């Protein structure tokens, strides 16, 4: 019985005008997005290569000048533009995408100037995620808003139910058919986009990409299901299809427009963090304190002879300053992460926001990617420091007074750049993607079932005449 309903509904959807328009629109936007991605990715990559070349060249010349020079100079590691950005851009243009480090510390992160044009109003990339979140959620509602109320108006609902057809099966059939129709449209768009990206783009097809596409489709089905459930709910709540349409549109506006766009406000209002000026003031106070308590002559500079006693005093002072500042800044960085993560969790009441976080995890990008790079950089920094200390220990011409800011009292011998460990960003493993996504997945499944269940209960009590 369910299959009959499903068949009828799917065919009904497939032959409808909305399906035709959505299909055309989605294919057109997917194609536009793919073309736009290929072009901007190529130019982003070119800019990245230049930056990366400079970064390596600079480090090579520092290594030639001396191991300490390489160890104490701050470097800025830039994340590579992601080749699967067409699946989910995860707002990477606006997120921090560079990490400042030396052998002694991982200092800070920044959004490299130039990754986003400040004169261009913030915009969403035409990635699969954006198109799906915007259009497909809308289409899912369009397929369902009059599923019950519309049939009631045309009097076919009473006829259908005069057959031995359980109401659950009817509702289930309508739900499943809406999801299937939406997914058919998504699939058409995804295939269009993939063809364009593979033909025009430099990157080929890989097993990882296939996995990501499948993961994306699964998440998209979840989104379509959630909105179909909301559409059905609107349909059984209202008496006329007119009203259910407006209800459905209100859901959509709330979830796709209002909630995701109020995040900054929520973040600052509910989870405030200290002002950067205050943090700077704390750092300055600690520095003042250390300077005051430092033995006299600690600041005397004379770089000629590494063994001068003031170098040891200054090395100690600089090391203390580094540790003190690191303590304060690390706490502040964690406060930022916490503020961001909590805000995300709060906006997860919107299925559209949930969908964005889930596709971010599927494509291994955005905030998750940055966090992983940030953690990995800390591991790397330890290795780099150990490497440097070993070099220094082998040098008899060095007094071994570690100074994180100056090239004075540690080894001055050059080092072969090829031997220096390099930080490389590793691709996100499966577990790192699934782990943080689990809670969002759980919320989404919960919302979907709750809304569907509510629609079901209301439909059971629905007057179909």
């Amino acid at each position: 019985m369910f299959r009959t309903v499903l068949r009828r509904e799917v065919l009904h959807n497939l032959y409808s005008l909305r399906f035709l328009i959505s299909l055309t629109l989605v294919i057109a936007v997917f194609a536009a997005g793919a073309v736009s991605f290929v072009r901007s990715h190529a130019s982003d990559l070119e800019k990245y290569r230049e930056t990366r070349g400079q970064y390596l060249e600079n480090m090579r010349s520092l290594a030639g000048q001396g191991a300490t020079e390489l160890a104490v100079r701050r470097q800025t590691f830039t994340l590579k533009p992601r080749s699967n950005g067409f699946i989910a851009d995860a707002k990477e243009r606006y997120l921090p995408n560079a990490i400042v480090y030396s052998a002694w510390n991982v200092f800070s992160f920044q959004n490299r100037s130039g990754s986003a044009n400040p004169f261009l109003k913030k915009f969403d990339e035409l990635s699969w995620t954006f198109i799906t979140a915007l259009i497909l959620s809308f289409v899912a509602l369009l397929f369902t808003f009059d599923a019950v109320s519309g049939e009631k108006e045309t009097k076919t609902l009473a006829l259908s139910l005069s057959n031995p057809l359980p109401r659950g099966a009817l509702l289930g059939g309508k739900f499943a058919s809406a999801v299937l129709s939406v997914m058919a449209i998504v699939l058409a768009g995804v295939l269009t986009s993939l063809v364009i990206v593979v033909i025009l783009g430099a990157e080929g097809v890989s097993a990882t990409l296939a996995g990501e596409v499948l993961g994306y489709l699964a998440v998209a089905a979840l989104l379509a299901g959630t909105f179909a459930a909301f559409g059905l709910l609107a349909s059984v709540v209202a008496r006329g299809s007119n009203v259910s349409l407006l209800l459905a549109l209100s859901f959509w506006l709330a979830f796709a427009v209002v909630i995701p766009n109020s995040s900054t406000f929520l973040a600052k209002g509910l989870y405030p963090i200290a002002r950067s000026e205050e943090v700077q003031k704390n750092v300055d106070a600690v520095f003042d304190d250390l300077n005051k308590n430092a033995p006299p002559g600690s600041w005397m500079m004379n770089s000629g002879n590494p063994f001068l006693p003031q170098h040891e005093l200054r090395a100690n002072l600089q090391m203390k300053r580094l540790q003190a500042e690191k303590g304060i800044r690390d706490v502040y960085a964690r406060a930022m992460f916490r503020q961001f993560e909590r805000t995300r969790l709060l906006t997860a009441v919107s299925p559209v926001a949930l969908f964005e976080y889930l596709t971010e995890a599927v494509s291994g990008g955005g905030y998750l990617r940055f966090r992983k790079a940030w953690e990995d950089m800390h591991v790397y920094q330890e290795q780099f420091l150990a490497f440097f200390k070993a070099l220094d220990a082998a040098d008899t011409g060095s007094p071994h007074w570690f100074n994180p800011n100056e090239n004075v009292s540690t080894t001055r011998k050059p080092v072969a750049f090829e031997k220096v460990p390099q930080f490389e960003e590793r691709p996100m493993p499966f577990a790192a993607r699934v782990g943080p996504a689990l809670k969002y997945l759980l919320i989404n499944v919960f919302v979907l079932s709750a809304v569907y269940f509510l629609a079901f209960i209301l439909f059971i009590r629905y007057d179909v005449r």
Partner: protein
Amino acid sequence: MTGTLVRKEFLTNLVSPRFAIGFVLCLVLIPFSLLINISGYRERAAQYRIDRDAAEKAAAEVRVYSTLRPEIVLPPEPLGVFGKGVSDQVGNRVQIMLGDKPLLAAGKTAAGDNPFLASFFSVDFVDIAAIVFSLLALIFSYDAFSREKEDGTLKLQMSNSLSRSTALAGKLLGILLTLLPVIVFSFLVGSLLILFARDISFSAGEWGRIALLFAASLVYLAVFVFLGLLVSTRSKSSVTSLVVCLFLWVVLVFIVPAVSANFAGSFFGAESRDNLDRVLRDVDQQREAAISAAFKAQGVPEGWSCWWCYGDEDGRIETYGNPRDEFEKFRRRASLSEPIRLDFAEKKWAPAKAYIDSLARQARAAERLSFLSPTGLFRAVASALCRTDLASHERHMDRTRQYREAFVRWLRGKDIFASFRWITPSDPSKFKTEDELIEMRTGGEFKTAGEFEAWAAQQKDARARWMKLSQVKVSGDSPDDFPYLDISDMPRFEVRAGGFLFGLGPSALWVGILLVEAVFLFYAGYVAFIRYDVR
């Protein structure tokens, strides 16, 4: 006759659930967007006060001209509460340097202290108005005729002695009359929120701009009403009409702006910032070479030493307690290097300007492409009205560059680069020789520098040299002995907002385009209705 029709339409709409839902939608979304933006404004105003106080303090606590770098802090735009434009993406602070002209404003953006928040987007009154007004216009007009045709009342109506123009006029006026209270209400709520917000107040000119925004919203609304009407008269059934209208809405309001920004991003590439930085570094190196060459040509000796020194980028140098010769060396260096630095600022400006021009070109391309949709036009007009568009920002930045010229003229007028006041507040008539200084600092233990050096060379610990010289405090040895510089005659940067209609030239054209669109759609709808089969 028209009056009767209008009344009927108005009353039917008024009691319909869609009016109630539409009204509630505005009732929730408009105050929501304004409250968010008022709180954002408050935060920016607080940040502005912090930045301004810091800038004033920094400018006041200066003892020599060479470290004077006035910082301009731009106040937040109160009208930005309605439409943010680009104002929350660009910074608000510009430091005036000698070696560079102001390029981009620094300072915090809307993300505030947490750069991750920059990945969250936000909406304002204009966005909500663009989304909701167009939706309401379409919701009320999509079934203007198709529904009545389905109900069979259209036939009945037209069987009276009623011309089609009158029927159409009645319909249209009825819809517009229904939507008018919603819009008026939205603007009233907005204005009330502004009036009751504590730390925000509008001038008469600003209220005038809000009135213009209201007028622009009406034109925008009319475009969508006529669009809905056209679709309605061209569709067979009201369901078809609805589906077409909703898709048009999504395309015009959401997709066209997104596609235009993306296409501008990928087809109107902006220059690379890293590349610009590299070019500017090269010019800096040329400048340093030119300065060294000038030193050589004028016979200024290489190297220098000082008792108390502070030096920083952009030629900042402040020094105390030196012998006369050493002061003179600093003075000569600065008198040669600073004019060269100013010349090179002009040289650095060409590539820098090319870079910001490419950014502006990209942004303008995105805006122009979005004009394919009435929403794009409306947004552009609204941000110009709210003085938060790119052109307003560019005007601010141009004025900071003019201010830099005035500041430099002021410095040159004082002939300050060749003066000791550039590097030290010490009185040149009280400069001492090195021997005199050594004698004073060691309390008479050493009479000449030669004696002291001979003694110092025998000390094992290099610190001894410094300890010995610190025995007696000599007046003028450190900054604390001098008052701050009197800069009351320094030119001040004045923040000028511009008059009521300032900078609205292009917007007039854009509203004109919106009007033309409205007239065209109306005409098309009219023709379609004349030929409409009402049975």
